[in-house]
């Protein structure tokens, strides 16, 4: 394992609304090496997406530290943070502004961070995700779900980040489109040596995409596994085994 790119140490996230407190993440630690692809698997309410949101500052870090390249992150995140870390959201129908053309979606981050050669960069970004200049001046409603998710990937990549946070990037897509987007993400990581942190409820997707993964339940990390261990169904905990068997499809009744 190479140098650590991104690590969380005893991360806690607590939401307060009114009198209620919800402990979404209760002490999760992991370290992602530079160039590695790391997965977080869990069901709804496990806190997996909250971990991603805490990393990029959309959720409050109640306790613990998150370090990027060894430096603890400050709150609020400085603008330069977003040059290094970008995120792809789950639902491509919700993550693109309905009144902005693709061109505007891609040129805005360039304008914010004062990039030069904007025209070239936009063209290149669209080509990279397999869309081409034809799509540049369209609105999101003129695109299919898969094309929208490609735009979202292009938006994340246009600032040339080193870390990409992927929040269930294919769960809203059809199986055949999912394959295309996963292949795209895989190719881009290989080409650019990116570090991925991917959240999913789908064990098969994580097994395909990630070198290592952690299983979360009720805000806690239950188990950490390598891809090989997962492929061989060598799970230590009952919960992971239950997830594994449920992922295989329908089984008439519990054998036990």
């Amino acid at each position, binding site marked *: 394992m190479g140098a650590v790119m991104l690590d969380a140490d005893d991360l806690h996230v607590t939401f307060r609304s009114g009198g209620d407190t919800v402990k979404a993440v209760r002490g999760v630690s992991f370290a992602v090496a530079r160039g590695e692809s790391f997965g977080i698997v869990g069901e709804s309410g496990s806190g997996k997406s909250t971990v991603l949101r805490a990393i990029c500052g959309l959720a409050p870090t109640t306790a613990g530290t998150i370090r990027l390249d060894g430096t603890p992150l400050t709150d609020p995140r400085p603008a330069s943070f977003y040059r290094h870390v970008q995120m792809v959201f789950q639902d491509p129908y919700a993550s693109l502004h309905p009144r902005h053309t693709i061109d505007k979606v891609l040129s805005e981050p360039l304008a914010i961070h004062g990039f030069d050669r904007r025209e070239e960069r936009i063209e290149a970004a669209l080509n990279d995700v397999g869309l081409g200049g034809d799509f540049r001046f369209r609105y999101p409603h003129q695109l299919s779900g898969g094309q929208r998710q490609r735009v979202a990937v292009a938006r994340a990549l246009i600032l040339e980040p080193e870390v990409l946070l992927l929040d269930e990037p294919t769960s809203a897509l059809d199986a055949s489109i999912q394959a295309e987007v996963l292949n795209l993400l895989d190719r881009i990581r290989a080409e650019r040596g990116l570090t991925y942190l991917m959240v999913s409820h789908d064990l*098969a997707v994580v097994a395909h995409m990630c070198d290592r993964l952690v299983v979360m339940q009720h805000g806690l990390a239950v188990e950490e596994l390598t891809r090989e261990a997962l*492929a061989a169904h060598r799970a230590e905990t009952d919960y992971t085994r239950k997830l594994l068997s449920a992922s295989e499809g*329908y*089984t008439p009744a519990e054998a036990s």
Partner: protein
Amino acid sequence: MTPLLTVEDLRITFPTRAGPSEVVRGVSFTLGRERLGIVGESGSGKSQTGRALLGLTPPPGKATAKVLNFDGIDLKNASAATWRRLRGARMSMVMQDPKFSLNPVMTVGKQLLEALKFGAGETRAEARVRALAMLEAVQIRDPERVFRAYPHELSGGMGQRAMIAMMLVTEPDLLIADEPTSALDVTVQVEVLRILDALVRDRGMGLIFISHDLRLVSSFCDRVLVMYAGRVVEELKASELDKAQHPYTRGLMNCLPKIEGGVRPLPTLERDAAWAL
């Protein structure tokens, strides 16, 4: 075995600015007292097919068929009164998201009783007993509490079970389940499917299970229809899915990532314009 439901040449058209667009183009099948899966991607017309069977094609859409027969009743020319008598009582539908299908300002119990009212003429107390029994049948551990609860007080899995209970409390002969589990966690999904499975086995209900998840459908259903662009491109036994002939079915199977590790990059589905013809 006489079929419970016979569908022949079902077509559904929606008018658009560029002229009428046919989203379902001649679907035919029969259903006995079995689990039939309809698989397809978004836009394949699978959900519209399910709705049309209940006469619920949203306007301005129009559904036509050569034959649409449910247990000897001709649905094609059914009056509004006939539909009312059938829907809920003899044929029901479970939707994807319980949040949108349960009335948010009514307790689950009240909605269950409401569903029963159109059934046999029985007292309120008897109906209540039946409703509670149904909640128990869908594996709700504390039926009394759920009976009194409002939908928002239930978790996703609980809500979906309450929804299924509501649809099944009248003991329909046909249940159409449109992605009944895709909003649920995988572990809850298995439990909900077991409930449906038991109902088909024990009560001899016919089940149409509509889903995009080929792997799930193939492990759950007896037979599978694969739909593409408004047509059934292949019909096969679920156990023989690996012997699928149609390139679309095979493509759908192959493009799924596998836990055991598979090919990288994943094989993608090359669509052939000829499939849609």
